[in-house]
């Protein structure tokens, strides 16, 4: 017994030290802005409200922080879709006027490796732009920075919330230079092969209901030169 107590205490301290090191490691997932974000060749920039209550429709398994909207939305409780979310939202153009509708399917990725700072989500967007056509965007997103900088501090905070200014590119794959792949579906966009980056800007977050003030952005560009 005499020997077990210090061993167990040391073990617990070791686990805590590892968790601290993992969440405070400056080399993990500190990604520079995607080259796509800073190049020209812009086709369009679409912003959307990332707050669940301000989406047109959002549903998931009902246990997520993002509360389904409307509240009577059918939940995704079956095992193959339980780790997925679907959201329909209005996409605004650069001046902030409604430009289209975006439907996003996202599912937690089995390629997630927390040890390497990868909290991955596989997602696809279907973007409908009236009069212009439609787009399909295929991407893998990494939420490690978001979790580390916002979600964990919100849990640590006595008010269960976080306030500040956070901006980050979420898209990391599968296109060239860590961009999403965009395929034109119909209308003037039919057949076009483009690149995109989804980014997120958050100023308030609640550990209970998720983002409180947050805006997402889809920056769609011609393929990188």
């Amino acid at each position, binding site marked *: 017994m005499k020997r077990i107590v210090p061993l*167990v205490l*040391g073990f617990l*301290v070791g686990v805590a030290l590892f968790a601290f090191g993992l969440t405070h490691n400056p080399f993990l997932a500190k990604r520079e802005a995607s080259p796509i974000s800073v190049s020209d060749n812009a086709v369009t920039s679409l912003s959307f409200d990332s707050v669940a209550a301000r989406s047109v429709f959002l549903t998931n398994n009902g246990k997520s922080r993002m509360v389904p909207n409307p509240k009577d939305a059918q939940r995704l409780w079956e095992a193959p879709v339980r780790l997925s979310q679907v959201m*329909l939202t209005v996409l605004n153009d650069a001046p902030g006027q409604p430009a289209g509708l975006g439907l996003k*399917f996202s599912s937690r990725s*089995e390629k997630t490796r927390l040890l390497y700072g990868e909290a991955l989500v596989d997602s696809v967007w*279907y973007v409908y732009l*009236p009069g212009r056509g439609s787009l399909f965007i295929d991407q893998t997103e990494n939420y490690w920075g978001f979790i580390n900088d916002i979600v964990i501090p919100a849990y640590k905070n006595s008010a269960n919330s976080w306030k500040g200014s956070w901006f980050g590119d979420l898209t990391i794959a599968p296109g060239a230079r860590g961009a999403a792949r965009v*395929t034109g579906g*119909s209308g003037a966009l039919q057949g076009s092969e483009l690149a995109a980056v989804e980014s997120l800007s958050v100023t308030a977050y609640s550990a209970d209901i998720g983002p409180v003030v947050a805006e997402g952005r889809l920056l769609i560009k011609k393929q990188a030169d």
Partner: protein
Amino acid sequence: MLKLFITGIVLGILAAAGVLYAYPAVDQHREPSLLKVAPNGGTTELFHINLPDDRIMSRSPGQSASVPESLVWPADERFASAQFGVYKLRNESDVVVGLAARAAASEQSGALVEWVLHLPARGSQFVSMQTQPPASGVRSGVLRAGSREFDNRDGSVTVRWVAGVAGEQNAPDGRIELKTSYIGKRSGSE
């Protein structure tokens, strides 16, 4: 005592790292893929949507009530003619394996009928359909893009409505059948 404590710390660090390395943080549930080999090559897979049970969201201009009932559609008039539907997608064994979305728009804003099939453990497919409803009742389309398992696939999709029959419990209204055919890799891909 101190040696044991330090040994415990090292063990704790190694154990935490080992668990994170070995244990999958995300484990998507997989249903077996019910693929069939087509006579002319390639493979086919049949999915369906039972109505009304699998309808998660639905909104169309002529519809008296949206699903869910409290859905608030954006007021902008450019979205007035758009139809959107989101459904649970089932395989041939009638098991939910993913999600599907259908979008349609009328001639005035650029006619389109498109589907996105999202199978979380496998990938997604983006399909453009014929805009005019065919006399046969079977609408066909092409696989425009896909992700992961469906990346760079060439293929086609047919969609048909199968009316429900009296006494049918799973789909009293009927069901939407989607038959996907994967012919091979798109030219130029590996």
